[in-house]
């Protein structure tokens, strides 16, 4: 049991060091730019349909749940604002993160893992280049940048889903739904949502690139990397969610903004 914990901590430490190295490369601009744009586009293209579908349904679900709770208070006019606010601040980034960790996180871990076990990573080193610069950093940054675009689209779709349910379920027309959105959403909320989105995509990018890069053991090893990536990403996202909520909340409270 103890050895399992120390083993985990060791790997975690290695993972952090790995992430630090990639960050250093990214900040020094030593990323293969061609690869970077390729990756951003690829991540975006692959995840967009799923994000839009999920966003739509989540918006719908939240509208139903919220309307059930606030209808007794006669506050249905705020339904649109409330649902959208919750989406921007919390549900949107979280949802995008869960989907990304599955689609892109697992996929990248599989891709990098396959490259590792078929010796392509070693081949890059022998041909005079640095795998981190050529292959890993572009994917890392690609995930983070693409996630921001995905957030915007996911948000739009969840408003659409909410609008639909508002009409079908709660009898609120589109105008009413949209009216209080500007009222309830402050720039602080938007800021919170963006920070969370960045945090989560950072977590996903680190986990999948590190675990993919560390893969050993052939086809089975690749499968293992994917599983570990999927699980660990999700757990990390949830913890990061709580941490960021907690920190932001405490900060804002002490700054008297809450």
């Amino acid at each position: 049991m103890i050895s399992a914990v120390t083993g985990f901590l060791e790997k975690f430490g290695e993972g952090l060091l790995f992430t630090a190295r990639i960050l250093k490369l990214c900040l020094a601009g030593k990323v293969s730019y061609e690869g970077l744009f390729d990756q951003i586009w690829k991540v975006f293209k692959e995840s967009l349909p799923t994000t839009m579908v999920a966003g739509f349904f989540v918006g719908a679900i939240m509208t139903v749940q919220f309307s059930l709770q606030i209808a007794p208070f006669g506050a249905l006019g705020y339904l649109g604002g409330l649902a959208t606010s919750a989406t921007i601040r919390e549900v949107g980034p979280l949802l995008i993160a869960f989907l990304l960790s599955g689609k892109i996180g697992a996929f990248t871990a599989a891709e990098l893992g396959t490259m590792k076990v078929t010796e392509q990573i070693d081949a890059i080193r022998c041909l005079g280049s640095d795998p981190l610069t050529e292959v890993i950093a572009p994917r890392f940054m690609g995930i983070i940048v693409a996630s921001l675009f995905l957030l915007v689209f996911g948000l739009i779709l969840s408003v659409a889903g909410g609008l639909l349910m508002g009409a079908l379920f709660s009898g609120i027309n589109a105008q009413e739904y949209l009216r209080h959105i500007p009222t309830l959403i402050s720039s602080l909320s938007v800021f919170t949502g963006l920070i969370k989105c960045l945090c989560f995509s950072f977590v996903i990018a680190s986990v999948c690139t590190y675990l993919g890069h560390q893969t050993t053991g052939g086809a089975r090893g690749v499968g293992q990397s994917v599983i570990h990536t999927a699980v660990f990403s999700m757990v990390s996202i949830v913890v990061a969610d709580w941490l960021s909520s907690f920190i932001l909340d405490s900060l804002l409270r002490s700054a008297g903004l809450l």
Partner: protein
Amino acid sequence: MLEFKSVKKSFETKTVLDGISFKTEVGEILFILGTSGTGKSVLLKLIVGLLNVSAGEIWLDEEKISDLKEEDLFPVRKKCGMVFQHPALFDSETVFGNLSYGIRPHLSGLSSGEIKKKVLENLEVVGLTEDLLEKKPSQLSYGMQKRVSLARTLCLQPEMLLFDEPTTGLDPVTTEAVNQLILNASRKYGSTSLVVSHDMKSALKVADRILVLDQGKIIELATPKEIVSSRVPLVQDFLSEVLND
């Protein structure tokens, strides 16, 4: 040229190479034989710095290379071109992209015309034609992929070629073709070749000298002519399989 001085390599609890010392001769084809899991591939990886020695030194042309850092290893990797067991071609690049990967402008200072020329030259050496250049690796057969992989390394114009189990898992016809490729590639640039293998038959045909590893130590180093009369038991085992064909 290349010299191993009492090189040891261990992983956690397992010692894979235990005091290996030998020197290569210029322009020779040296086969390194041994049963599976004896650290033959490890030996090659130590040369190009994909792994680090646990003890001992490796020297290349009067220069110690076993303690170089990653940033300083590229010249070594150019001199000692590694050909992996898997083709290890990059799926997202075309054949041309793969072949020119090691000699891209920012790495070699060559013009695109010169790069194309090199690519075509080496494509010819491995017996492939120009029409493959725009294809992707997934569109090639395994045998073709292996040839492209070799051509990719040849583009670096290495003085030494390192082959990691080139014929493992191949049928006899393809094995023969690969042996011929090894000969061609060596002769083309006058390179020294180290071939890691467990195929004694190919070794007897192609090698100038054969080195046999067992339990991390060298148990025999001789020419094919000398080795057939070796008294070492394991070597005799290897030979008996071949001679009984």
